[in-house]
């Protein structure tokens, strides 16, 4: 039977989020700073509760969710990234007409959804978590409702997201119909009975397609650049990190736990999706002039690399995926915080890559941090972004997929070009009009921390973080 203590973080966030919504409703705009900070505190306390609580309680509620180290690892990532997304919005919405207090509440609810996603061990809880996350996401995308682009982003995200949910749901119903179970263990048992039937295969493909949409994996990536560009930048920072990590982790658990006996069936799909994402994400980014669109393609490209680890499978592949996503979240949060600081002299946000011109001369520290994130995303040593790439390739090679690893690694060269382009604009070009100085010491501190993590000093993390991801991935088996 259910043990509520195992769900302590989710309960805290749900109840706390509801209370915060009330506070927001009654205080209006005056209370927005208060609600924001309370939401950050709530997320951090929930993170703390993960450490203290019986986080390895195993399956609860008859196997609807499980509280293992894999889930806890994902939740730490998600809660911290969500908290940073709230901090990132600080000083962003004040000038508009929006009630920025609701922003924090929506992120908290989205975090609840994501934390259900990473701990889901049943198709039903998987769907519920995913929808909770997505519904909050649709609203967030169109949060700046007076801005046409934001409204467009929200609508696009909603329509395509609903379609993907439909596909996912159809897949789930097929799987349920052919196996008689929604449980991951039940699915695994059904798949283990013999070669999967056509119905099962269809179900599997539809479910994976639905998840691929949420993780913006090629060929279900079309919404990503538009939504990333249109959504307010703090929201984009959020979309690019926590929900993406949650979707990848969810896919990892589903594939390695529920569909483990059908590995041969999903592996070819994942291999295709990984390569397609790597190459399309790399090539399509070439012509971009908007930094948010470019980072959208970069995120498609990066998720492709994470999928290389998933395709490798096994505890080693799972561990590589976790490691990859953790560093990916750090790199992207850092990069987006930098993008948030791109403001023209009047304080209006600018998004064109050309405006970064000569940043190394006008704002050397800013340019340096951005260059760190770019080289790290490209996976160039000695920056730390190289290490997770090495881990996923290692997993692929040791699983016997050397040709696949070679193809993927050639993708890094293609991707390197556009990251270099940003470095080139910042370092080689003549200075453009300088940005206004943003006075947000906390955001500055966060950028500094992220830059230190991706710097060569990050290699000190390699051992401890690797040990945790190994254990977390081990809890799937």
């Amino acid at each position: 039977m259910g043990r509520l203590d195992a769900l302590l973080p989710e309960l805290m966030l749900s109840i706390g989020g509801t209370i915060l919504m009330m506070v927001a409703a009654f205080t209006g705009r005056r209370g927005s700073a208060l609600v924001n900070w309370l939401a950050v505190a709530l997320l951090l306390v929930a993170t703390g509760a993960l450490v203290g609580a019986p986080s390895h309680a195993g399956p609860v509620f008859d196997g609807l969710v499980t509280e293992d180290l894999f889930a806890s690892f994902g939740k730490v990532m998600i809660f911290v990234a969500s908290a940073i997304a709230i901090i990132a919005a600080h000083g962003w919405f004040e000038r508009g007409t929006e009630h920025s207090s609701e922003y924090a509440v929506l992120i908290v609810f989205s975090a609840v959804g994501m934390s259900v996603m990473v701990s889901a061990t049943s198709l039903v809880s998987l769907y519920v978590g995913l929808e909770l996350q997505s519904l909050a996401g649709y609203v967030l995308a169109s949060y700046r409702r007076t801005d046409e682009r934001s409204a467009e982003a929200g609508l696009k995200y909603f329509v395509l997201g609903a379609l993907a949910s439909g596909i996912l749901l159809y897949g789930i119903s097929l799987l349920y119909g052919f196996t008689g179970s929604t449980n991951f263990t039940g699915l695994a048992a059904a798949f283990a009975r013999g070669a999967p039937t056509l119905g099962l295969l269809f179900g599997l493909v539809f479910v994976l397609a639905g998840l691929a949409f949420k993780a913006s994996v090629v060929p279900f990536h079309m919404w990503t650049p538009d939504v990333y560009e249109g959504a307010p930048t703090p929201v984009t920072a959020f979309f690019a990190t926590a929900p993406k990590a949650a979707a990848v982790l969810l896919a990892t658990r589903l594939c390695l736990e529920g569909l483990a006996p059908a590995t041969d069936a999903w592996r070819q799909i994942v291999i295709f999706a990984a390569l397609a994402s790597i190459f399309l994400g790399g090539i399509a980014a070439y012509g971009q002039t908007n930094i948010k669109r470019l980072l959208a393609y970069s995120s498609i490209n990066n998720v492709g690399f994470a999928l290389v680890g998933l395709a490798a499978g096994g505890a080693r592949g799972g561990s590589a995926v976790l490691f990859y996503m953790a560093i990916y979240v750090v790199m992207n949060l850092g990069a987006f915080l930098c993008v948030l600081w791109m403001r023209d002299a009047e304080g209006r946000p600018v998004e064109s890559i050309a405006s970064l011109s000569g940043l190394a001369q006008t704002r050397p520290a800013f340019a340096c941090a951005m260059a760190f994130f770019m080289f790290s995303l490209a996976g160039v040593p000695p920056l730390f972004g190289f290490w997770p790439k090495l881990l996923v390739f290692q997993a692929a090679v040791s699983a016997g997929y050397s040709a696949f690893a070679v193809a993927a690694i050639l993708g890094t060269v293609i991707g390197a070009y556009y990251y270099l382009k940003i470095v080139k604009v910042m370092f080689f070009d003549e200075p453009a009009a300088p940005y206004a100085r943003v006075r947000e010491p906390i955001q500055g501190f966060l950028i500094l921390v992220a830059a230190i993590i991706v710097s060569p000093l990050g290699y000190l993390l390699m051992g401890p973080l690797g040990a945790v991801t190994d254990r977390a991935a081990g809890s799937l088996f």
Partner: protein
Amino acid sequence: MTGLPVLTILIAIPLVAGVIAMFANANGARWIALIATLLDFALSIYLWQAYDPNGAQWQFVENVDLGGGIHWALGIDGIALVLIALTAFLMPICIGASWRSIDKRVPEYMAYFLLMEALIMGSFAAQDLFLFYIFFEGGLIPMFLIIGIWGGAERIKASYKFFLYTFFGSVLMLIAMIYMRSVAGTTYIPALMAYDFSREAQAWLFLAFLASFAVKLPMWPVHTWLPDAHVQAPTAGSVILAGVLLKLGGYGFIRFSLPMFPDGSAQFIPLMFALSAVAAIYTSLVALVQTDMKKLIAYSSVAHMAFVTFGLFALNRQGIEGAILVMLGHGLVSGALFLCVGVVYDRLHTREITRYGGLSDNMPGYSLLFMVFTMASIGLPGTSNFPGEFLSMVGTYQASTWAAIAACFSTILAAAYMLYLYWRICFGTQRHADAAALPDLSAREWWLLAPIVLAVFWMGIYPESFLRMTRNDVGRLLVRMERVVPPGDSHLTLGKSAAHMNHGAH
């Protein structure tokens, strides 16, 4: 041996100095860079003194587990030692060469140079496969920025080309490294040097490493990034590129390709010889028709590197020792030649050969030194390149007569293009008034070039002080390769007189 982690200090000095220089003002950064590089040079002299050529293969060993399957494992043998010494020797000269000619964004420039020195030292000292890769690849970033920020008109294209070419080669090597780790279960380089991979795997691994080192060295036909990068890079950038970064490719062959994949290496000897032969003849001819001084020297670098690959893949003592000497000699001489180009470029701001002429009248000191380096580049006996090129050719001759013939052509053509270059710049009539009015070398420039002249003669007259350091290491390598060395086509047959044979072999 002391307990002091000398190699870590060797890497840390430029690294720390680089970070400090970033925050200093222009003059402060210059002095910080000079002092740090001189300290590193002093440290390399200490290493040279303390290294025991007859002692253990790996000395000054350090090993700290960093977790995650990678070790901070450092240690050097004689081959790494001489290359570290070369790097440490050239670095202060590079800083000196940039003292006045770089006047914008000086702190950044010095910081990138120091960072690069740290990374190069790390690549030579690394004993862990992935640690090596991190250092090896890391060197791309500062060089990319140096070319891109302080380069000539076409700098952007050159910097991209440099970065993407080398990055492409290296990622293939990375996959090979991952494979090696998964098969051999270790990333410790000395252990891998004794590990026998299957014959088939060796072929693939060799090709993957070749992709990286051939680009780095560079070998024909993947050399095309080099002329661009050299021409566009600032003088000191060219010096370090030609003097040290190219040597990483040769070092890679000696450290990885030969001992780790002896079968693979032996299988591809014909390929390596063929590519080297093309490089030796074709790029020499290309050098002959250049009108840009730096481009000419850049192509001559590619041609000289053919001696390295010839010598290495001859798989005998003369060849390999010759290859190491060529790397050292070429490091000195091509570095010095780029400095010589820099001297006149700083004055006239053009690299067009036809804009100069008759400089021996108004710049006698310069013409004298330039002559020394020109002769050294040709391989005149008594200068640094002679012992290396000679040994390399002797070794090649034992392995393949045809390859040796190609190598000989390289020397002949080197004489042609270098003398032609020297003639057009220093001799002849003074056609241009501005070129005729150029002042001779300043005290600073004398200080930069004089140490190289000394080193060039030292290497030419008494190469034993360098050979001594690497002799045992080459011996170990040969023992490892013994099994696979194919019979050469120049073995003596009965029926010829002894005098004739001696004549033929030398």
